[in-house]
């Protein structure tokens, strides 16, 4: 039941022994009944630590997702690049070569240009997604609740959308995805509860 030297609500300095903060009226000393309720006070402190841990885990999860998304985009780039390079070589070899129908070669060249633009956009989208997650990781340091909530919404939607388009995508890394979602849900829950504790001056 030690009176702290700073008011937990407004931060003004409080001389030891005063029961209420002179500046904002916050009750600094707990009531006698509350002082006897040691179990609840210990439980409260324990909960606070749990929430802090879960928020930290959630932040790490967001970073992991950002890294995975970035790695994915790099992988797509390299795989697609090698396929495109192969097609490019075949087209170049066929050009001017009388063995091949030049009209078809030009058609193939147009298809190649379209494909390479498509690949660029695909890689760009994946990089954009990775940057979004990275941004959310930074934001989570300052505002854990909106950031983890946004990350959860983003992640679930992207997974559901890619599964609806190609159901095979859903099964790839399913366990990891479930774990990520679980960590994010716990982080959102804890971020809100921790914020509420701070409002109570805990």
């Amino acid at each position, binding site marked *: 039941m030690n009176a702290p030297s700073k008011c937990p*609500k407004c931060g003004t300095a*409080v*001389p030891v022994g*005063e*029961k*209420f*903060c*002179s*500046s*904002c*009226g*916050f*009750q600094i000393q*707990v*009531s006698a*009944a*509350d002082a006897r*309720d040691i179990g*609840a*006070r210990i*439980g*409260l402190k324990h*909960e606070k630590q749990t929430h802090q841990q879960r928020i930290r885990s959630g932040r790490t999860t967001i970073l992991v997702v950002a890294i995975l998304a970035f790695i994915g985009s790099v992988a797509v780039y390299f795989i697609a690049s090698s396929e495109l390079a192969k097609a490019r070589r075949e087209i170049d070899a066929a050009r001017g070569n009388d063995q091949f129908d030049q009209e078809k070669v030009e058609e193939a060249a147009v298809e190649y240009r*379209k494909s390479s*633009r*498509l690949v660029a*956009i695909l890689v760009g*989208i994946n990089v*954009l*997604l990775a940057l*979004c997650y990275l941004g959310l990781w930074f934001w989570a340091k300052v*505002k854990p*609740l*909106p950031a983890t*909530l*946004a990350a*959860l*919404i*983003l992640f*679930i*939607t*992207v997974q*559901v*959308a890619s599964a*609806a*388009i190609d159901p095979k995508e859903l099964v790839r890394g399913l366990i990891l995805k479930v774990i990520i979602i679980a960590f994010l849900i716990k982080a*959102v*829950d804890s971020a*809100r*509860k921790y*914020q*509420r*504790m701070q409002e*109570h*001056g*805990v």
Partner: protein
Amino acid sequence: MESDPGLPPEPGPPVVPEWAICRTCGNILREGASFCPDCGHPVRAGVTRPPPRLSARQILYDVQGSNSPVRRVLGFYLIWLVAGIVSVAAAGEGPAAVQVMMGIDAFTFTMTAGWAAAFRREVFRLFRFPKGGARWLAYPALAAWPIAALISLFVGWLQQAIGAEFTYSSLFFPHGYGWGWIILLICIQPALVEELAFRGILQTTLRDTMKSWDAIVVSALAFSIMHWSLPILVPFFLFGAWLGWLRHRTESLWPAMIAHFSHNLLIVLDEHWPVLPG
């Protein structure tokens, strides 16, 4: 009583300044104090004291239930996710596309209206006249033109790069659905239902747990990602943020609804007549 003008006034009892003693418990106050440090009563008139501090047990109980707004937001968003899944699973540009759209729109309309009815007190408040005057009904409609122009340019560039050619009209007119249907499903439905859902329900519920700007950002993100098109993520996010700001600034849904309707209408009209640049 006449006082002798030649003598100095008699010293009276010591004067204690009014702010020095708490009127409730008599404790001596420090200079500049707003509350008594012993009993917590306000010293000055017009100052309200904070609510009594809860016990640890009460705090634990309150904290346990504090995540209900977040759960509501996630639950409500899940409904839109389900609608998205169905619309993609039944996708296509054949004659059934409009019927699927009608079905999805009926579903989201019902769910959103039902949710709004459950929280009708907060939701009805949003249908008030916009704070700041009638210009907030006109300005969104006008601002919708440059914004639709920008989005149309971006989408045009994207479609050219991918080699896809998508128009809303191609889903409707070739299959016998006329202007009435396209206006209803593409202009009126999103302006009504998406605004009620994302700016009305989602953003308002989020404001219970976070600052207004954070609520705008999260609801704009949900709004843009709900369209299930990653290339369009950033433009729609910015559009959603603008709509969210309109709702926040005017404490009303009407400006956002007008903006959304005007924007979609311009996009649809642009498919037939050159109302937008590019």
